[in-house]
Structures are given as C-alpha cells and as structure tokens.
C-alpha cells in the first residue's frame, strides 16, 4: 500500500474525526490510516483541514485539545443545538466555579486550602466536581493526617476546550497593591495557608 496523498488524507482524517467517539490523537489517526504514516504528517493535514473549515465558515470547528483533535460546533450555534436536543444547558453553580478556579490555578491543593480561600465549607461542591471528573485526587500532602491533594485532569481541559492549563485565562494580580503592603501580604500568604489547619484557634485567638 503506497502512502496516501494529501487530498486523500484529508477526506480520510475528516471521516475518522467525524466518526470518533472522543478526541483523537495524531498518532491514533496515523495508526488507523497506514502503518508507515508519521503522526507529524497527520498533524499537518489536520491543520489544513482546520484552516479549510475556518475559511469556509463551517458549522463546526476542528479543535485541538489536550487529548487530541475533535470536531466541535461553534459556540454561537449553541442555542439551536440545545433546542434540537430539548436539553437544558450544562450548568456549574457559582460555588462550583469558584472551587474549580481555585483548584485549577493552585493545584495541587487540599480541601483545607480551598475552604480557607473561599471562607466556606466546600465539601458538597468538591463531591460534585469529583463526580463530574472535573477534579481528581492527585496525591497526599506531607502534613499530619496526610490530607488529599486535588488537581484537574484531562476531562477538565476537555470541558473547557483547552489544550493545556497554560491556556487558562490569566489570573488578576494584586497589582494595585502598594509595594510595602504587597511585600507584607506575600510573606503572610505562605503563613496563612499553614495556619489554616488550626482554623478554630485562629478565630478565637
């Protein structure tokens, strides 16, 4: 079997992406197409396809995610698709979004860190996020009681349409803070996290 030309590859890759149940990596596509096909060639053709979709303004876009390539509809078409599905949009509560933001930006973090930053108990919200696989346990912290550390996984990136955590919107910084206070706050920020383990003592003491 001779190597496929670009036009052929384009339609084949289009077919594979169309029929794929989830994101597909260049390597997986290459393996399905031809034993000698280098994944880099597939990536290049995928780029051509993506560009073609953009230029012809198709109803879907070819997006690169952490787990591979996927065809996705355009955000501006969401309302029509929901009407077709008779489905209510997927929703995350504000509490869930706040918790998720803390975990995504500060991972790995413990429940205590999240509770301290939010000022409320995050148990129920954490459970929802774990159930929806947006958050996962990534280890244990070397502290008394070995608290579980949480972080985000591939499902988080897939849900938000990101290639990596580096694509997260940048965090607002304390840039309006006067420099002397900024210094004080920074030294406190490390101390505060540790002090939280002793939350009760703090509020009374």
């Amino acid at each position, binding site marked *: 079997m001779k190597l496929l030309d670009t036009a052929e590859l384009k339609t084949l890759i289009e077919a594979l992406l*169309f*029929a*794929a*149940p*989830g994101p597909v990596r260049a390597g997986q596509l290459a393996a399905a197409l031809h034993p000698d096909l280098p994944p880099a060639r597939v990536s290049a053709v995928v780029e051509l396809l993506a560009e073609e979709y953009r230029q012809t303004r198709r109803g879907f876009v070819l997006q690169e995610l952490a787990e591979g390539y*996927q*065809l*996705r*509809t*355009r*955000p501006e078409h*969401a309302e029509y*698709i929901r009407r077709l599905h*008779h489905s209510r*949009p*997927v*929703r*995350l509560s*504000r*509490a869930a*979004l*706040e918790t*998720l*933001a*803390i975990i*995504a*930006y500060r991972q790995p973090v413990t429940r205590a860190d999240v509770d*301290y*930053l*939010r*000022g*409320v*108990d995050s148990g129920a919200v954490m459970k929802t996020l774990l159930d929806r696989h947006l958050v996962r346990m990534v280890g244990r912290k070397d502290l008394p009681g070995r608290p579980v550390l949480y972080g985000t996984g591939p499902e988080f990136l*897939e*849900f*938000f*349409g*990101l290639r990596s955590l580096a694509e*997260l*919107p940048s*965090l*607002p*910084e*304390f840039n309006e*803070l*006067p420099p002397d*206070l900024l210094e*004080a*706050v920074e030294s*406190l*920020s490390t101390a*505060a996290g540790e002090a939280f383990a002793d939350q009760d003592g703090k*509020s*009374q003491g």
Partner: protein
Amino acid sequence: MAYHIDLENFKGPLDLLLHLIKQHEMDIYDIPIAEITAQYLAALDTMKSLNLEIAGEFLVMASTLLHIKSRLLLPSREAADNDEEEVDPREELVHRLLEYQKYKEAAQSLERLPLLGRDVFVRQIADEAMAGNDDGELQPVPLFELVEALRRLLQEPPPPPVHEVARERLSVAERARQVLELLSRRPQLPFLDVVGLGCDRELLIVTFLAVLELAKLGLVRILQGQHHAAIWLHAVEQRPAAAAIPVDEAFGYC
C-alpha cells in the same frame, strides 16, 4: 437603610464582605473596621429577621471582625515592649479578601469559556453503534425493563415547585389520545420523551398507564433495539385508532 440581600448571591462571609466594601465604597487596603463590622452585623441581622439559617462561617467571620476591631482599639503590647514592627491586625483579612476576589474573578472568566455541553457540542455516538453487535432488529421489551424505565423516571428530582392554582384532572384516555396524536405525526417516538416529557409525577404516571393501555389495545408497540437499549413506541397502522380508546371508566381508573 435597606439591604438587598440576595441569598443566591452570597457564597460565604468573604463574598458578603466584598459586597459591603464595594457597596459602601470602602478602600479594601484600608478597611474602616468599625464601619464594616457594623455593616456586616447588620447584614446578619437582616438574614436572621428573614428567618434564614446563618451558616457557622458567617458567625466565625463576625467574631474575627470583632476581634480585629478590639485589637485596633487596644494599644499593642508588643509594640510598646519592643520595637518589633507592628503588624496591622487587618492584614490577614485584607489578604483573604484579595485572594477571594481573585478567584471569584477567575471563576467568572472560566464561565466565559466555551463549555462543552453548554456552548459547544460534539457528536453523540451511541455505544451500540460502536459495539457493532446491533443487528438493527427490534425486539419486544421485557416487563421488568419497562418498570425499570419508570422507576428511573420517578427517581429524577421533581422540577422546582410551581404554585398551582387549579388542579387539573388528568385522564388516562385523554393522555392516550395525545400519545396517539404524537405518533400519528411520527411513526416512532422514544419512550423516555413521551413519558418523561419534563412533566410532574402525576402526569408521568398517567402517561405511563396510557402507554400500557395503548399497548394492551394493540394500538402501539413498545420495542427496543436490544436489552437495556432505548425503548421506542411504535404506531400500529390502524385507523381511526383514537376511536378505539374507551373512556376512563372503561379502563377502571376512576
């Protein structure tokens, strides 16, 4: 003064404090502690007067505020005794507020991203299509699966309560006619769409009974692609079918 405490909106004491600071145009880096404490306690009072249960976290923050206030009022012992730099008792609170505000904003920017299932969608490929063991033949649905489907529908949380004024009298015969009407437009319909159509439990049960009666009368057939697959209602060619539906009394549902 009037407080507009929108319960949904306060996710905790930090959120409430941030709101009060903004509302009263206070400087977050130089919080007037006496004033914010008074505002905060007043807000808690409002919540109490509305008979809301105040979460423990709100009370902890109240005590923190009072503690800071007292420390500001009393001359610091350490500062008098030695020349160690005096730490502003508000500093930790300011830090927590700033951090909280940061993540609150981050949460808002996360929400603006195109979310899968809300803004963007991917193709839904049924497991059966991928498994390849589906010969496309439809088969009768065992009774237990039908009952299981009803149980699942009943387990779904009921929709938020709507205050009813008049009580509607639901009729199995009427519902059966409506189901036939739906089926006259399309030869087959998903069972879950017909029975579970976002309705209340009473309507759900009446619809389920109506579907069973229709099946008994031979006006619809209940089929599925394979065990545990989606259940479909199929119209049976027989016209005029609606005439064959007896009144409720004949079904024995009165």
